[in-house]
């Protein structure tokens, strides 16, 4: 009881002072009662876990938005996906006596945290979005991540919703011997890609032979098959066809669903497909799915737009595959643009910045509409060096270590040139950037307002 009081009190104090209370209250509460999560878990009827390398936060928010059309739920926001974040989410929905006002929880869980909490909660569905290279210093190596997920799955009775286009997810599904639902894209939309991007897990985890691909979507997601054994991409139960602004969901014996996408990019279409598939498995019909998508607002820093006089788009980057998708979105914008790239190397960012060299920044060198790139953050100079070796003219590269100053500079230069700004940043720079950009939007609005008043 004391733990709950302390936790709620800390949360209340933090919010009072304008801080976000997504992790810290849980951390403090856990210190008083290490078993707190188990106590909360006993009160819940069903928990849906979303895990995987990329797309956890977006998929979780989308699914939460759909389920909450029907009932009150618990969910962790802003990617607070470690145990303290999950406990904080429960605290938010609990009374001062520790009673939880919801029966269902939709939780984003970090791959390394999942095995630690799996048996504390009544997990009924596990969604794995993909397994890409991410933060090697935290997890050791990619194969360790697969093992962690597998050990977590074994601690639950849950059924699985997996990305069938990802050979590593398929491997998980085969080993887990659970009821498994696969989702995937329509094979007609796969492309034969010439770009040299990182492809993790391109070897068969069953027999070690190289996988052969008929086509790719992105990263290692594609139409794979092992020529040496019977490992092959499964036919998805939930089949998506992505057409820019819509996604069609086809499912056996059920009418097709035409979904309007609230987020841009192929990688986000995958997130929508994951969320909708999980919603279907949980028995949701078309109405809450449509309503959930319509009322969804993107989490901070996932293609978040700010109008500060010029359009600014903010994006999280944290690993090569996710970063490549973001860069592709930047270069497919035909406008002239300024780019700010903020790189920190704190624990939550990953202390090893090698991954910058596996990401395809060469794409920026080929885009003649990129006017200038400013690198920022604690490892701004490493990022600048990466751009130099990517073949970008060093006169186009600038280093401004303070992120706010870097964004100021980009916005003022872009305003003079009437063009767009893209901000790419690692995790610990993201929320400060959201804060700064939101302030700028407010200032810009009040200026515009003052201007209008004076002319009317």
């Amino acid at each position, binding site marked *: 009881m004391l733990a709950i009081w302390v936790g709620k009190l800390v949360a209340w104090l933090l919010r009072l002072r304008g801080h976000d209370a997504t992790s810290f209250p849980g951390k403090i509460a856990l210190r008083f009662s290490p078993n707190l999560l188990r106590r909360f878990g006993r009160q819940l009827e069903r928990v849906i876990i979303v895990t995987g390398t990329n797309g956890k936060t977006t998929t979780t928010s989308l699914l939460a938005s759909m389920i909450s059309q029907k009932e009150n739920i618990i969910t962790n926001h802003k990617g607070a996906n470690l145990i303290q974040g999950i406990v904080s989410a429960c605290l938010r929905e609990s009374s001062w006596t520790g009673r939880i006002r919801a029966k269902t929880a939709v939780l984003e869980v970090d791959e390394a945290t999942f095995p630690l909490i799996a048996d504390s909660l009544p997990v009924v569905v596990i969604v794995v979005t993909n397994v890409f290279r991410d933060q090697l210093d935290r997890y050791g190596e990619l194969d360790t991540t697969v093992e962690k997920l597998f050990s977590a799955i074994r601690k639950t009775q849950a059924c699985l919703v997996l990305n069938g286009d990802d050979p590593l997810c398929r491997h998980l599904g085969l080993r887990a011997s659970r009821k498994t639902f696969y989702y995937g894209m329509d094979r007609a939309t796969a492309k034969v890609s010439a770009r040299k991007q990182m492809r993790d897990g391109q070897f068969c985890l069953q027999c070690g032979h190289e996988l052969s691909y008929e086509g790719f979507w992105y990263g290692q997601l594609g139409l794979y098959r092992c020529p040496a054994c019977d490992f092959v991409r499964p036919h998805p139960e939930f089949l998506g066809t992505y057409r820019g602004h819509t996604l069609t969901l086809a499912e056996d014996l059920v009418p097709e669903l035409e979904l309007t996408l609230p987020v841009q990019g192929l990688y986000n279409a995958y997130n929508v497909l994951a969320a909708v598939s999980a919603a279907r498995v949980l028995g949701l019909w078309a109405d809450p799915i449509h309503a959930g998508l319509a009322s969804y607002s993107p989490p901070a820093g996932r293609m978040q737009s700010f109008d500060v006089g010029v359009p600014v788009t903010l994006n999280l980057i944290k690993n090569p595959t996710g970063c490549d998708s973001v860069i592709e979105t930047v270069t497919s914008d035909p406008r002239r643009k300024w780019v700010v790239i903020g790189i920190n190397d704190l624990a939550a960012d990953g202390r090893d910045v090698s991954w910058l*060299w596996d990401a395809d920044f060469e794409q920026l060198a080929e885009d003649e509409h990129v006017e200038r790139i400013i690198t920022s953050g604690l490892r701004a100079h490493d990022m600048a060096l*990466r751009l130099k*070796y990517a073949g970008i003219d060093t006169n186009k590269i600038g280093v401004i270590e303070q992120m706010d100053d870097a964004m100021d500079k980009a916005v003022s230069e872009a305003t003079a040139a009437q063009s767009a700004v893209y901000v790419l940043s690692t995790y610990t720079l993201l929320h400060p950037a959201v804060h700064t950009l939101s302030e700028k939007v407010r200032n810009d609005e009040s200026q515009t307002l003052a201007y209008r008043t004076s002319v009317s």
Partner: protein
Amino acid sequence: MSHRPLRIGHLFPDLLNLYADRGNILTLTQRLQWRGYDVIVDEITHADTPRFGAYDLVLLGGGSDREQMLVAGYLANHRTELRHAVEDGLPLLAICGGYQLLGAYYQVPSGEKIPGLELIDMVTNYSAGQPRLIGNVAILTEEAGVVMGFENHGGRTIHQGTPLGSVIHGHGNDGVSGLEGIRYRNIWGTYIHGPLLPKNPRLADAILRTMLQYAGIDDTLDPLDDRMEEEARRSFVKLRMPEVEAALG
């Protein structure tokens, strides 16, 4: 310049690509191209037959234990050829898993031994329960001053040969000896990635000089504008390993 194109063999980029080896290849090729050389990078996948006589430099990167096991299997048949090429002076840069492969074996926590290439009298052990050696690292080398980067390895490597350098910050070969990497003939073996070469241009040029010499080209390499590299080195050291600053000079 009228030289034949230089040829770099990148061994198993399909398997050993864990720690940004692409950055090392990029650094070597760019620094040659900026000086007017043509470079060809041959990606030798597991399906190809490596012809060690055809390369001016070979790079062997790092992978997970599973992938390293696969590589050991593929290379077993080419061990003799590689040994002859190395004794003949073939420059070889081996990083992380690739470094471990240079020795007799790498014993993983399960007790299983991944056989090495036996190019160097060296063994690596990773006992169950031992922590991984992870973090920023800086060493002092004879040929390239301070070499810095990141290390992330479970294996403890032991050899009696000449190390690449002595540890100023971080763990090195085994976390206790204070030594890092190995230098043998024209082999550079190291746990340092990050990747290794972009922030260590002196080492990159030392390797390139050896490579040109091996290719029969007489060139001491004109200096390049390395101000961005120097900035990156200084700010990294200042931020993460201030005690190394003095050694930078």
